[in-house]
């Protein structure tokens, strides 16, 4: 049995345990009294607050019961927010306008053109934020570890994200931001070349803030290579080498960057590529457990690396999204506790959610504002720790300023303006429909675990194209449903608009800028021409002899470009062989 089989079993065991405890609460008087006493304490600990119209409210909504079975069901089955198995939330209080951490969940993904253009967008997006939360989108060449001067990529430079070739670009990208601030955090959607890009980030920060700033740097790098193989298709090196470089980076970050999440285990791309919500959850969680296994096998301590995992899910309009985050948190917690022996900190799944890009369509694109708003509601109902809301012009281009701002205001309207989340934690939990859904979704996820278990686990299933073929099949199905009118999409197949497609302003990078990026890169290469070969040789030696590559990368990036470095590494480990 692979660990997936054991995890599925442990969740079943846990559910059986909860059922047994509920029964015991109803028969065992002593136990019932204990539960009641604990419940009274919990109730007493909840402070009250008032809505602007004067309604008194508790800061935490609890089930209105003092029946011991129901209490056991709640405390053990869902857990208080911030308590095992974390179905309700990873923390006790979130989104409340007073008292809680004070950081808004908003984190907007942005990247376009050259570093200075994205920098300008960052300043624009963050000007009204209390805390500084930046999230970086990189362009195609950067995502594939290629330099902007590589053959045939010029037209892609700065499109769909920012072009980063060197540590100097990285300095420009974050100019004017104090990255060492306590409430500053930077997220980077970067995968195959993640170790190189993070090394550039560290090097750039050291140049600005001094060598001892590293432990203060806070943020997340995606770096989840399994979902790359399965869905997003940004893989450069063979899978085993990709995983090795990732683990090198995690191992380095755990002691050296205590405020950094070195991996963001992502279902977003899996779902956007077509997976159903259940497949998204099953593949994402199983990928997460696989990283835990790999790191354990390298001798790392689950209680050290576990709390440094973060998760990233999609949130679309399908009904399962009402509960997906909740279900994922409890499966993760139970698996980490029972199968990996992790402590509380390593059990709590920290969740970033992005609204679904694929649900947004070109026809009558202003409707996308409504779609995103609904999805945001679901994301908050699942107590996502941070959220990205897509812009209404998502189908056309990298968001333009206007729609990016509307997307960010969408979050503020729900969280700050409306009273839905700011007074009471868990105002929406506990509805019978939600509980039914949770059970169904959880069972379906565990069924996928068991199926993958029979294939030999995540890596073996992946080699047999299991995840890819499931995702592709579901993606095909989704499109077929649209055109068979089985899935209404307003403006596309229902209430079809007769208006011609509007012409929207596009955020595109001019050829002049693209050439400027190449000129800068060439200048960097020329300046470092004498030092680069030696730096690459040192990196090659480390890679060849099994040392920690990340350790060396921090030096290499001082004088080498992204493409030079990925070229050197693939010389040692070979190239990824893609699958259909």
């Amino acid at each position, binding site marked *: 049995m692979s660990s997936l089989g054991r995890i599925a079993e442990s969740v079943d065991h846990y559910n059986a345990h909860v059922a047994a405890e509920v029964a015991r609460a109803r028969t065992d008087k002593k136990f019932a009294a204990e539960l009641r006493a604990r419940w009274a304490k919990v109730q007493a600990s909840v402070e009250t607050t008032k809505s602007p119209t004067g309604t008194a409210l508790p800061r935490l909504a609890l089930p209105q019961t003092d029946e011991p079975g129901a209490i056991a069901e709640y405390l053990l089955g869902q857990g208080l927010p911030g308590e095992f198995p974390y179905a309700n939330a990873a923390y006790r209080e979130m989104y409340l306008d007073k008292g809680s951490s004070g950081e808004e969940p908003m984190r907007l993904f942005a990247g376009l053109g050259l570093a200075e253009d994205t920098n300008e967008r960052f300043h624009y997006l963050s000007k009204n934020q209390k805390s500084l939360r930046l999230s970086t989108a990189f*362009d*195609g*060449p950067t*995502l*594939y570890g*290629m330099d902007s001067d590589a*053959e*045939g*990529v*010029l*037209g*892609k*430079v700065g*499109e*769909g994200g920012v072009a980063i070739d060197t540590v100097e670009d990285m300095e420009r990208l974050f100019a004017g931001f104090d990255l060492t601030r306590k409430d500053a955090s930077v997220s980077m959607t970067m995968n195959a070349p993640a170790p190189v890009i993070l090394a550039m980030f560290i090097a750039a920060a050291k140049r600005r803030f001094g060598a001892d700033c590293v432990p203060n740097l806070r943020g997340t790098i995606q770096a989840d290579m399994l979902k790359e193989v399965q869905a*997003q*298709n*940004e893989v450069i090196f*063979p899978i085993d080498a990709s995983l090795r470089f990732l683990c090198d980076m995690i191992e380095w970050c755990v002691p050296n960057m205590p405020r950094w999440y070195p991996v963001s285990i992502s279902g977003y791309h899996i779902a*956007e*590529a*077509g997976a159903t919500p259940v497949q998204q959850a099953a593949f994402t969680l199983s990928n997460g457990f696989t990283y835990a296994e790999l790191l354990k096998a390298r001798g790392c301590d689950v209680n050290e690396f576990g709390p440094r995992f973060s998760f990233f899910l999609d949130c679309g309009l399908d009904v399962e999204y009402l509960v997906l985050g909740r279900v994922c948190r409890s499966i993760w917690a139970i698996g980490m506790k029972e199968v990996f022996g992790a402590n509380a900190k390593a059990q709590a799944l920290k969740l970033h959610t992005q609204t679904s890009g694929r649900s947004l*369509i*070109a*026809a009558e*694109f202003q409707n996308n504002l409504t779609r995103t708003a609904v999805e945001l509601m679901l994301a908050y109902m699942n107590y996502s720790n941070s959220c990205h809301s897509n812009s209404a012009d998502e*189908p*056309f*281009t*990298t968001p333009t300023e206007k729609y990016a701002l509307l997307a960010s205001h969408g979050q503020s309207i729900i969280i700050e303006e409306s009273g839905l989340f700011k007074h009471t934690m868990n105002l929406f939990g506990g509805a019978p429909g939600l509980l039914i859904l949770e059970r169904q979704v959880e069972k379906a996820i565990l069924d996928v675990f068991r199926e993958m278990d029979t294939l030999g686990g995540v890596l073996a299933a992946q*080699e*047999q194209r299991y995840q890819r073929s499931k995702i*592709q099949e579901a*993606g*095909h199905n989704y*499109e*077929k449903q649209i*055109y068979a009118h089985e899935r209404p999409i307003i403006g*596309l197949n229902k209430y079809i608009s007769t208006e011609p*497609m509007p*012409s*929207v302003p*596009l955020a*595109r*990078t001019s050829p002049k800028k693209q050439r400027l990026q190449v000129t800068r890169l060439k200048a960097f290469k020329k300046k470092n021409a004498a030092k680069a070969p030696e730096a690459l040789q040192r990196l090659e030696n480390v890679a060849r002899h099994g040392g920690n590559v990340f350790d060396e990368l921090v030096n290499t990036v001082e004088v080498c470009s992204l493409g030079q470095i990925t070229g050197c590494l693939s010389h040692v*480990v*070979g*190239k*990824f*062989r*893609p*699958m*259909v």
Partner: protein
Amino acid sequence: MAAAKTSRASFATPLRILTAVPVCDGHDSAVTTINIELARHGLEVIYLGYHQAASAIVRAAIQEDANVVGISSYNGGHIVFFKEVVDQLKKSGNGDIPVFGGGGGTITHGDERLMKRQGTDRIFFAGTPLDDIMNLVKRDYARDAKPNAKFKGDRALARALTIAEENAMTVGGDYSKTSRPKAAPTVQKTGKAPGFVLGVAGPGGAGKSTLIDELTSRFLRSNPTGRIAILANDPSHPDTGGAILGDRVSAIYAQDDRVFFRSLATRGNLTGLSASAPAAIDILKKSGEFDLILVESVGVGQESDPFGIFGKAKKLVDASLFVLAPYYGGLIQLQKIALLNGADLVALNKCDHPMAHTARAEIQARLDQNGKDQMLYPTTAAKHFDPGVDHLFAAIATLAAKNS
């Protein structure tokens, strides 16, 4: 419209379309859906994969003699990219192959106008019903493949193979008969030796394609000027007649002008190869272009003999390689694999698999029974620079040297 239009009724062979996603772009969800639909509508889809350079798309279009190239682009830069593909096709004398595509909302109507002026045939916008796409593709991109004296180099060769495929087309399920045979295509002869032909057979998933690609890399490294050809046979869908020919996706070393890679759908032929394979092999040999010609069969079972090793007629290949993975189902199953008696070389692939050790001993014993000069090569094709593959390649080179 660059392609000749023919009515649906007059085109007897499936339409062959090459699909790909541009360089630095991994958005493959649209293209995989389109691929599935095209195959469902009876087309042969040669899928090249995501993150593909314009030059790789052009090379594949030429070698596959595709009716049309379909590009699915999402990461921007489409105006430059489509133009690059169109220009490279034109420059190489293959401007008759139309280029079309889509990219959801990322390609605007304004972009389309410019792209059309620059030679792109058509763009499908976001929200186009799949059936509309299929109908237009079938209507507009069918063609009658004739020998064309203007075609040069690989395209001439590729067209010859297309005609060989058409000549081998089945009539009413009788695969031995040939429908409307066309004049034998002209292929240039350079007076060079015909090259060594190695047939590669084995069960589906054993690693034939991966191994062939690794052998290709050895060939390119050890032979600095020569060329290698690969004929990759894949099954057609028995009901729709369509096929997704995806071997190019994983063939990373085929991205080189010294490699001629051609995907062949079996079109109902059940021997494990396209019915055109004998003619195709002949064409490649006569071209004098190649030092090594590798012919991959579809996944074959215990009794098949795709290369005619046991028959009385002339064998299709100079030598054959049988590839199997450690999980063949035990000794009894192993006994039944006929090709193990006839293959010149046997590769036990996936030696990283826990059962490999036992398998190796069992297969060796099985080969010893034959009392022939067959060699067993343990390989791990999925691993780069695998020494087992090095040994296998050396053995092939030795056989090839003996042959010439």
